């Protein structure tokens, strides 16, 4: 799929910084926007913002990514089946706490893999039946290789990345396209307080623009900043015997 993007655009996990940037990028193209989050009342200001800036229609929807049983209903109740569905749901937590308490780890697994996979799976099935649509999953470079500093979150994202890849394979030729986004570091609430190198750190609006461009051009897998492709190629090429002794 390529050319002018069509709405409505559904944004799951709409309260995040990246989600806000995505909503603005697509609304600037004139797309109607559906914002979905656990507590949609908190999205009123974002709705007003999108309507005021871009004059597009915006609707708010309640969705809990962890309540998998509800997902068929949530999607069925949307005013329109979206043309583009972007999943920005995720939870990082603290690696040491996650590793020390498997209940926390399970929450991270479910928030980054099970929930997003379920929501996008429901949407993908309906888009496939319609024969059109784009699914965008925001995964992470952390899923490219497990590291001591981030492997709970990273392994959930690895699952999500593999899921998106399989979904893309399944739907190729069925009119539905799947974009995998591996953003690298982004200046958001999640990374606040971390000391991250400037050239590797993207701003949320860069991510929003990159996702819009990927949807318009029908790209499969994107890194927001190109340098991440190189960084991850190096990290993935290190032999395991050496890698296990490093702290990256």
């Amino acid at each position, binding site marked *: 799929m390529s050319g002018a993007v069509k709405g409505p655009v559904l944004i799951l996990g709409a309260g995040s*910084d990246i989600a806000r940037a995505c909503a603005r990028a697509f609304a600037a193209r004139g797309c109607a926007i559906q914002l979905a989050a656990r507590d949609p009342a908190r999205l009123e*200001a974002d709705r*007003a*913002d999108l309507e*005021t*800036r*871009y004059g597009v229609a915006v609707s708010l929807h309640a969705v809990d990514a962890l309540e998998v049983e509800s997902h068929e209903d949530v999607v069925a109740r949307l005013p329109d089946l979206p043309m583009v569905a972007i999943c920005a749901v995720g939870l990082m937590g603290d690696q040491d706490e996650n590793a020390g308490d498997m209940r926390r780890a399970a929450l991270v697994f479910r928030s980054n893999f099970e929930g997003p996979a379920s929501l996008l799976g429901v949407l993908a099935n309906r888009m496939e039946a319609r024969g059109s649509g784009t699914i965008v999953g925001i995964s992470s470079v952390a899923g490219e290789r497990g590291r001591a500093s981030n492997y709970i979150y990273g392994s959930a994202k690895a699952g999500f990345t593999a899921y998106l890849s399989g979904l893309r394979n399944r739907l190729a030729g069925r009119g539905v396209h799947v974009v995998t986004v591996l953003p690298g570091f982004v200046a958001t*609430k999640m990374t606040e307080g971390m000391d991250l190198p400037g050239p590797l750190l993207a701003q949320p609006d860069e991510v929003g623009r990159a996702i819009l461009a990927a949807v318009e051009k029908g790209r499969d897998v994107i890194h927001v900043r190109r340098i991440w492709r190189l960084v991850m190629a190096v990290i993935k090429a290190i032999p395991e015997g050496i890698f296990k002794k490093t702290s990256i």
Partner: protein
Amino acid sequence: MTRLSGWGRFRPVETRVAKARGEADVAAALAGGPLIARGNGRAYGDSAVSPGLTLDMRGMDRMLSFDPVRGVLVAEAGVLLADVIAAFLPRGWFPAVTPGTKFVSLGGAIAADVHGKNHHLDGGFGAFVDWVEVMGADGKIARAEAGSDLFDWTVGGMGLTGVILRAQIRLRPVETGWIVQDMRATQTLAATIDMMEATNDAPYSVAWLDCVTQGAMMGRGLVMLGRHARLEDLPREKRRKPFATPKKPVLRLPVDLPAAALNGVTRRVFNAGYYWNGRRKPGPRLVDWDSYFYPLDAILDWNRGYGRAGFVQFQCALPQEAARPGMAALLGAIAASGEASVLSVLKRFGAERGRFSFPMAGYTLALDFPANDRSLKLMERLDAITLDHGGRFYLAKDARMPRAVMEAADPRVAAFRAMRERSGAAGLFVSAQSERLGL
């Protein structure tokens, strides 16, 4: 802890930084001790860095409502003027007052009561604000309506009355995205001021001064007048899309230039070249809004051009009756020092408003110098000349003024301090600048 400075990159301050995404974050930050709100960091000095917490307001950047009949916008403090222009110029509205960069936040524009090329007729940014919502020392949100005490202290109050959360502003209806600019070269300072007096009814008016040339030609310059182009001012082919202006490439300055790059020689060459280039094309012509109002925005990181040590701005206002001798004395001191400001801008101010705003009826002169011992010495001399002529200083530009100079220049300081004590703002809303100046 982070090292943070204003746009001039002069003397960074060690500060903690937190980002506010909603008013709950502001309230939480307030509970943690002294802070100052920061918008997009375009104040040149230390107005928006705190020795305590610097609260980044860019996360509160939502537009909340717009009345398309009256051009009234309600928005959060972190919205940039660039966002306002992007959203509303295509619908025929433009900021009623704009400073020389579109990358200022709404909160910052109100806190500094920024002025534009139309101050002589329209007043400052605050003249087009209907109300401001401010979170005070008690953590409560007050809506200050125009004309109220809190409003008059907050507009121009440099964020020292509380954290500006939201505001309602009035935009200006325009028919096109173009400006009819009329450039006129002058031979002397007196002629420059004469020209500005004679053209006082021009909606926009500003003069660039050559501050290198000494003697009789001192203060020669280019007076740049402007008005929003009407539809009939545009050539026929532009009338169908009157708000479409050429998209300018965004340039970046990816590295700090060596401090020597903008040295005496290059500044001299620049001043002479700018003058003669301007003289070659006098008279009215059409200029797009971006080139007219924001020429420096074309290079995103232009502040890196001064090298690592950064640069320092000097901007004073002189009352009308003292403007001619005062400006002559200031330019004389600069020329005699051998320093040259890269850009020297002279502007007519209209009547004073608010209780702590910078503008006063008269003239203002803005200068910038690379930060070094010689220029800092020169600025002490300029401080003294300003005081001798009954002038005052622009806090959004200041990075180095001693407390005694501020107190001598501005008798309003005592009342400002008393207000801050009464409201509880004194210990809580603190910038490096407010500490330096004892505000």
